C-alpha cells in the first residue's frame, strides 16, 4: 500500500431506514492534502466525513487510518478533529476555555495549555478575544474559534463539515483563503465537505465529486473542471452547455445537425453521447462566419462578463462573453476542437 495514504475507506455501505446513503464507497486520502468532498445535498458527503470522524458506523466496509483498521474506535480515541457545520461551540465557556477543552481533557499542564491555546488563537486571528463570551462573537469569529478548538489538539486530520455555509459571501471568500493558508502552515490533512463548487475549486488539492452515495470523479480542480468524466460532473462544476450528440467516428461529432472536429475517440461509430461545452469556450462571431448561428434570446450583465442565451437548433446555448450583444440579433458561434468534451450518455 502507498505509504502516503493516511485514510483509506474500503467498500463502505451505510443506510438509514432502508435508504442507501453510501453504496460501496472506496476512497484513499493522501497525507497533508486538502481534499474536498463535493456534491449536492444527500449525496453522502457528510456521511463519509462522519465515518472518518467516528460518528457514524458503516453497515459494512472498513476504515483504515495510517494502515490500521479503526471502524470500531469511538470518536474520542481518534486522532481526528472536526469543525462542525453550526460550529457547535460551548456557550457556557469563554473563547479560551472552548479552545482549551480538548487539552484539558488530556490533563496537560496549565502552562502548556495556556501557551498552545494562545498560539492557536493567534493563528486564527483572535489573539485578543481569549476572555470573550462566545455569544458576543460574530459568525466569522465563532468559526475561527471552532477551527482553533479543533486544531489546537494537533490532529493528523481536520474534518470540516460545510464550515462556511452560514457566512456571507465576502467573509466566506476571506475564510477560504484563510483556511488554505492554515492548512499549508500546519501541513496537515484537511477533509472538507461542501456543496459549493467554487469553494472546492479554490481551496482543494484534490476534489472528490459525489452523487447518490457514489464517487463520480476524483481529481485536481483543473482535471475536474476541464475534463469532467460525465455530464453530471460537468453540470455540477461550473456552468455548462450539455447537449445530445452523435459520435460519427473518432474525432468527429455531430451536434444539432452540424459536424465538429474534436479530440475524443474510442466510441462506437454513431454512438449517442453527451457533449459538454463550457459557456466561456464559445466564440461569438458574425453570423456568416460561425459554425453555428442563432438568435440572441437574452443578455444578462454578470460583472466580468455578459451571460448571453442563444437559441439554435431547439437548444438554448449559454455563452459567457465580454462583448455585449443585442437581443433578437443573429450571431455566429465557433467552438474549437479542444473545447468539446465528449462523454458517455447518462442513463438517467
Amino acid at each position, binding site marked *: 500500500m502507498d505509504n502516503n495514504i493516511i485514510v483509506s475507506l474500503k467498500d463502505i455501505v451505510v443506510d438509514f431506514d432502508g435508504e442507501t446513503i453510501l453504496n460501496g464507497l472506496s476512497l484513499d486520502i493522501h497525507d497533508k492534502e486538502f481534499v474536498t468532498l463535493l456534491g449536492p445535498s444527500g449525496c453522502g458527503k457528510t456521511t463519509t466525513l462522519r465515518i472518518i*470522524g467516528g460518528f457514524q458506523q458503516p453497515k459494512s466496509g472498513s476504515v483504515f487510518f495510517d494502515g490500521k483498521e479503526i471502524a470500531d474506535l469511538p470518536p*474520542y480515541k481518534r486522532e481526528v478533529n472536526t469543525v*462542525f457545520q453550526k460550529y457547535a461551540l*460551548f456557550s457556557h465557556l469563554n473563547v479560551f476555555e472552548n479552545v482549551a477543552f480538548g487539552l484539558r481533557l488530556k490533563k496537560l499542564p496549565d502552562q502548556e495549555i495556556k501557551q498552545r491555546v494562545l498560539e492557536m488563537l493567534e493563528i486564527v486571528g483572535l489573539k485578543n478575544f481569549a476572555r470573550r463570551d462566545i455569544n458576543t462573537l460574530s459568525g466569522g469569529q465563532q468559526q475561527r474559534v471552532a477551527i482553533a478548538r479543533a486544531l489546537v489538539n494537533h490532529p493528523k486530520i481536520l474534518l470540516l463539515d460545510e464550515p462556511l455555509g452560514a457566512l456571507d459571501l465576502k467573509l466566506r471568500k476571506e475564510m477560504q483563503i484563510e483556511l488554505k493558508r492554515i492548512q499549508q502552515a500546519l501541513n496537515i490533512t484537511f477533509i472538507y465537505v461542501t456543496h459549493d463548487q467554487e469553494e472546492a475549486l479554490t481551496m482543494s488539492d484534490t476534489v472528490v465529486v459525489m452523487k447518490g452515495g457514489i464517487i463520480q470523479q476524483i481529481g485536481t480542480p483543473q482535471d475536474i473542471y476541464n475534463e469532467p468524466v460525465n455530464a453530471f460532473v460537468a453540470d455540477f462544476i461550473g456552468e455548462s452547455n450539455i447537449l445530445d450528440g452523435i459520435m460519427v467516428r473518432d474525432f468527429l461529432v455531430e451536434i444539432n445537425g452540424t459536424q465538429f472536429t474534436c479530440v475524443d475517440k474510442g466510441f462506437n461509430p454513431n454512438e449517442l453521447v453527451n457533449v459538454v461545452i463550457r459557456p466561456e469556450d464559445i466564440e461569438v462571431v458574425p453570423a456568416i462566419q460561425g459554425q453555428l448561428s442563432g438568435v440572441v434570446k437574452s443578455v444578462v450583465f454578470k460583472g466580468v462578463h455578459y451571460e448571453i442565451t442563444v437559441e439554435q437548433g431547439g437548444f438554448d446555448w449559454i455563452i459567457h462573453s465580454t462583448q455585449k450583444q443585442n437581443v433578437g440579433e443573429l450571431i455566429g458561434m465557433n467552438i474549437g476542437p479542444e473545447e468539446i468534451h465528449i462523454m458517455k450518455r447518462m442513463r438517467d
Partner: protein
Amino acid sequence: MKKKYISAPYLVWMALFIFAPLCLVVYFAFTDKRGNFTFENMSRLSTYAPVFLRSIILAGVATVFCLVMAYPVSYMLSRMKASRQKIMMMIIIMPMWMNFLLRTYAWMSLLERNGLINKFLGFFGVGPFNMINTNGAVILGMVYNYLPFMILPLYSTMVKIDHSLIEAAQDLGGNLYDVLTKVLIPLSMPGITTGITMVFVPSCSTFVISRMLGGDSAFMIGDLIDLQFLGNSYNPHLGSAMSLVLMVLVLLCMSLTNGFADDDSEVML
C-alpha cells in the same frame, strides 16, 4: 412605551393577591390577638425546629430522587424523534390529569398494612411490611406526585442542546463521563435549578402527602400551619409566623442551589 400597559392586568392581580396577602402575613406574624406588636410568635417557633428540619430533609431527599430519575429520562426524551417525544411526554404528564388526592389515596391503599402490596407479598410468605406512616412513604408520595415537574423543565432545556455539541465534546477527546460533566450538565443547569425549585418548594410545604402517607411519624410544617388555621389549635398569628419562616428557609435553600450552580460554571471558566 405602550407595551407597559399590556402587563397591567397582571400587575393589578399581583398587587391584590400576592403583595397584599404577603403584607398581611407579615402583619399577623408580628402581632398578637389584640393587634399589638410582638415577637412572641417568632420566639415560640424554636419549639417547632425539628418539624422544620424534617420538612426540609424529606423534601430534599425527594428532590434528589426526582433529579436522579428524571435526568436520564429527560435526556433520552430530548434525543427521540419529534413524534415519539410528544407521545412520551403525554404518558409522563398523564398521571397529572388524575386528581392529586385520588393519586395519594391510591398509594395509601397500596402501602397499608393489609394493602395490595403486602397482600401480594403475603402469597410468597413475605411480610407484612410496615410501609405506610413512614418517612419513606412520604418521600415516595412526593417523588410520585412531583416527578413530572422535574422532567418537564429538564426536557425543555435539553431539547435545545444541539446534538453536535455532544459530538464536539467526543471529538475533542471526551468520553461519556466527560461529556456529561463538562457539557451536558453545565448546559442543562437552568433546567436543573428550575426542576429543583418546582419539586422542592411544594414538597417542603405539603400537608396532604404527609398526612395521608406519613401519619404522626412524618408530621411536616405544612400540617402544622394547617392546624393553626383550620385545626383545633386555631392561631393565625403563629401560623403566619410559620409561613413566613418557611418562606425564608425555602428562599435560602434555593439561593444555595443557585449559588452552587453559578459556582460550578465559575470553576469551568
